[in-house]
């Protein structure tokens, strides 16, 4: 069953054609990594999947709802599709624990005691239970990102979107975040769409790699095949620049 399906999707920013004829099908439980040079449209593409960027043409079916239709209630999709950002976007006016508990309380009406129990378990899982009462701004980037992941997981989403989750982190923080992402990917029911420059992570975790350039999908291959034998010259060039 597909979780995310793009059919002939076009997106424009004014005159700029940001996404061109996108066709992509992500099955439930699959982990897909998006690669490509900067400005290729990867982030734009991933942001369309929970309606942060509207698309103008085609169909974009996420969890059974067509996001290309302006009538669609984006909130229903967002309840089931979490997102982790490059700059974390934790709520600056809430403690760590409140960051995780807020949406389940307001949106899912989760019982308060249960909400707290789940939040603490998640903090435990990302190794930051001792930071529950801290404000996000007092934590390191790596810690903030792990909390952002915990916040997304608290909604028990069917799919998670990661938009360059490690790009803003100091090198020594990257592995802590990748480790948690690996664990999430190991859960066979979770659909993951990841924009990243971490080739090691892509090789190890992705079922498939999508290569984008200039707003188009140039290649869509199983991971091993992509790294061993990329079909597209642009993809080959990209890999040779990144892997030394």
């Amino acid at each position, binding site marked *: 069953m597909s979780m995310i399906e793009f059919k002939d999707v076009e997106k424009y920013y004014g005159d700029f054609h940001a996404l061109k004829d996108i066709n992509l099908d992500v099955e439930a439980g699959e982990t897909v990594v998006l690669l490509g040079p900067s400005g290729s449209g990867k982030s734009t593409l991933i942001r369309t999947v*929970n309606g*942060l960027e509207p698309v103008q043409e085609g169909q974009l079916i996420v969890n059974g709802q067509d996001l290309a239709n302006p009538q669609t209630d984006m*909130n229903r999709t*967002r309840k089931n599709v979490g*997102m982790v*950002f490059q700059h974390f976007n934790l709520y*600056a006016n809430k403690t760590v624990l409140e960051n995780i508990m807020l*949406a389940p309380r307001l949106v899912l009406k989760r019982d308060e005691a249960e909400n707290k129990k789940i939040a603490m378990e998640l903090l435990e899982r990302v190794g930051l239970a001792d930071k529950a009462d801290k404000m996000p701004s007092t934590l390191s980037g790596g810690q903030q990102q792990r909390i952002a992941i915990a916040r*997304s997981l608290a909604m028990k989403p069917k799919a998670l979107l990661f938009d360059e989750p490690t790009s803003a982190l100091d090198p020594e923080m990257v592995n802590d975040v990748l480790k948690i992402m690996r664990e999430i990917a190991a859960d066979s029911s979770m659909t993951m769409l990841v924009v990243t420059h971490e080739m090691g992570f892509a090789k190890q975790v992705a079922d498939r790699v999508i290569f984008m350039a200039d707003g188009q999908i140039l290649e869509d291959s199983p991971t091993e095949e992509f790294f061993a034998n990329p079909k597209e010259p642009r993809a080959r060039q990209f890999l040779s620049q990144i892997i030394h």
Partner: protein
Amino acid sequence: MAEFLSAFSWINIRFLLMGLWVTIEVAVVSVILSFIIGSLLGVIRYVKIPYLSRIVGFIIDVIRNLPLLLIIFFTYFALPKIGIHLGVMTSTIFALTIFESAMLAEVIRSGIVAVPKGQLEGALSNGLSFKQALWHIILPQAYKKMIPPIVSQFVSLIKDTSLATIIMLPEVTYRAQIIYAQEPNAIVAMFFALAVLYFALNYVISKIGRILDRRMAA
């Protein structure tokens, strides 16, 4: 000098302080009302509702560019012509609220705009509705940034209440006028007293505002 000092009889001081209380009353009620209305208008400006936001924006621009005195005249002298009779106190509060709401709407809109866009995106993709995101995440952060401009608006509001002298609101400036009308020698003393009272009140408010701002920033 003896003239100057004799103006500060207990009767006169008490008379002035009662006026200062009216000043504070009018200012506090107006600032609370204009904070609520200004927030509403600021949010309407921010969310860009078709037509409504444009119309609200136009009205705010008009009000911001009118002298407050004209608005006071309008509420006190023009509204009765169309059958709306407001007392002196209500007229003043009404006029100040209209004027201050327009001022605060702009302060609040710019405060909202200054909250990083990622906060809204984080909230929306976390499943919150736009309203929930605004209420729980965006507005609390915006208000925190807005403490200094809101306090300075409050201070100008207190000073602006003196304009209501024109429609004979018994606030502190008006009462000073009554005193020196009866005791012409007291005129300098009364101006001095007014300066001290306004300064003391506004200085205290500014100080509280600064402390509040530092607390919230910590």
